[in-house]
């Protein structure tokens, strides 16, 4: 059963009661919440994701609830729990959906060390993957959102997972997080893009999420092969340029972008060096999304 197969009202009842079990890539999340914005976000952005009816085991129990009923009434705060523990301080209720998405990411980069994890977007076409590691503000998510609305499959917007046993990339598609000016940019670039509830006044400004394409969700069980590592950088007014970079440089920069390279030790070095052996690395600067998409399509 998919999220879209139950009504908003029933979804809300379940989330406020026993919770739902949501499959995202290789993970099963148990989710409970009484926050309407989070229920709306799950209803809209996770529409195509499968639910498990009665799971004996879930990877993570995530609960977002009003901090305390009276406190919530006056101060409108939301508290988060993962497996009964609180990984973050309560936030304003208006930031609830951004907190939910950030919590799912937190679960993965804190615990999922069975994978080599890179802080990077990943998109696939014809079985080959472009990995886009980049610090915040580089335009990674904007570029990723543009590409997946022009035929590339979304594997992840934030956390690229590599299976050490196979060196393949494990798809973990989730809503794409955009902020501030990027929201307008993508609304104009892809009028068909569906946005969830906005979370204003976060430390990064206003954040809203774009629903992942249906095909990306339906194919999330398909692993694929890394082929390119592209370090994107948005610079206003820049012409579209791509420069190849050495494998040594690519390796060091991916290592810096990895969440758990040092945790995995020797295994991390083996996974990374296997990947670097088969990928081409590029520095990519852009300001025009149409030109950027054309360059990726030419790979």
């Amino acid at each position, binding site marked *: 059963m998919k999220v879209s197969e139950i009504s908003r009202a029933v979804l809300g009842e379940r989330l406020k009661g026993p919770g739902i079990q949501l499959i995202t890539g290789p993970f099963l999340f148990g989710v409970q919440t009484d926050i309407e914005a989070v229920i709306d976000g799950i209803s809209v952005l996770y529409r195509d994701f499968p639910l498990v009816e009665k799971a004996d085991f879930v990877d993570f129990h995530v609960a977002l609830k009003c901090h305390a009923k009276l406190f919530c009434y006056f101060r409108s705060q939301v508290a988060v729990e993962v497996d009964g523990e609180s990984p973050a301080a309560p936030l304003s209720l208006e930031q609830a959906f951004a907190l939910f998405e950030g919590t799912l990411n937190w679960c993965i980069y804190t615990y999922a060390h069975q994978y080599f994890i890179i802080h990077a977007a990943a998109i696939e076409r014809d079985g080959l993957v472009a990995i886009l590691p980049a610090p915040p503000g580089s335009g990674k998510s904007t570029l990723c959102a543009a590409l997946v609305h022009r035929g590339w499959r979304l594997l992840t917007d934030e956390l690229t997972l590599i299976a050490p046993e196979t060196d393949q990339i494990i798809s973990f598609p989730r809503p794409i997080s955009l902020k501030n000016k990027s929201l307008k940019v993508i609304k104009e670039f892809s009028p068909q893009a569906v946005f969830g509830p906005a979370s204003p006044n976060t430390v990064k400004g206003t954040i809203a999420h774009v629903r992942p394409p249906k095909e990306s969700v339906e194919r999330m069980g398909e692993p694929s092969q890394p082929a390119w590592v592209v370090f994107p950088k948005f610079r206003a007014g820049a012409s579209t340029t791509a420069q190849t970079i*050495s494998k*040594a440089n690519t*390796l060091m920069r991916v290592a810096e972008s990895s969440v758990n390279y040092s945790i995995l030790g*020797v295994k991390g070095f083996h996974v990374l*060096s296997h990947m670097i052996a088969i990928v081409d690395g590029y520095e990519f600067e852009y300001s025009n999304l149409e030109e950027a998409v054309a360059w990726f399509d030419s790979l």
Partner: protein
Amino acid sequence: MVSRSTCWSTESLLWKQWADVPIVYNVISGNTHVISPVAAKILRQLEQQPSTAAQLALTIASEFDVDSDQEVVELVVRLVSDLDELGLVKPFTE
């Protein structure tokens, strides 16, 4: 300052090399380094057998076809000192 008479050995290392650029992973520290071909030659020799700076200078001179003079020995001493700071080499003890 590295003594010329000190005998050196390496930590446990893993290697990769693409386009003549050596990359070395230190199994003990978990750190990864891109190093020069000369530094790589020094580490390779120390993996084979512990050596002094003077012995390493002979290898470097032979490998790169230069005279093993005072200048080469001083270069090796500086390089070994850098490698020591990076934790890639250590004084050899029986």
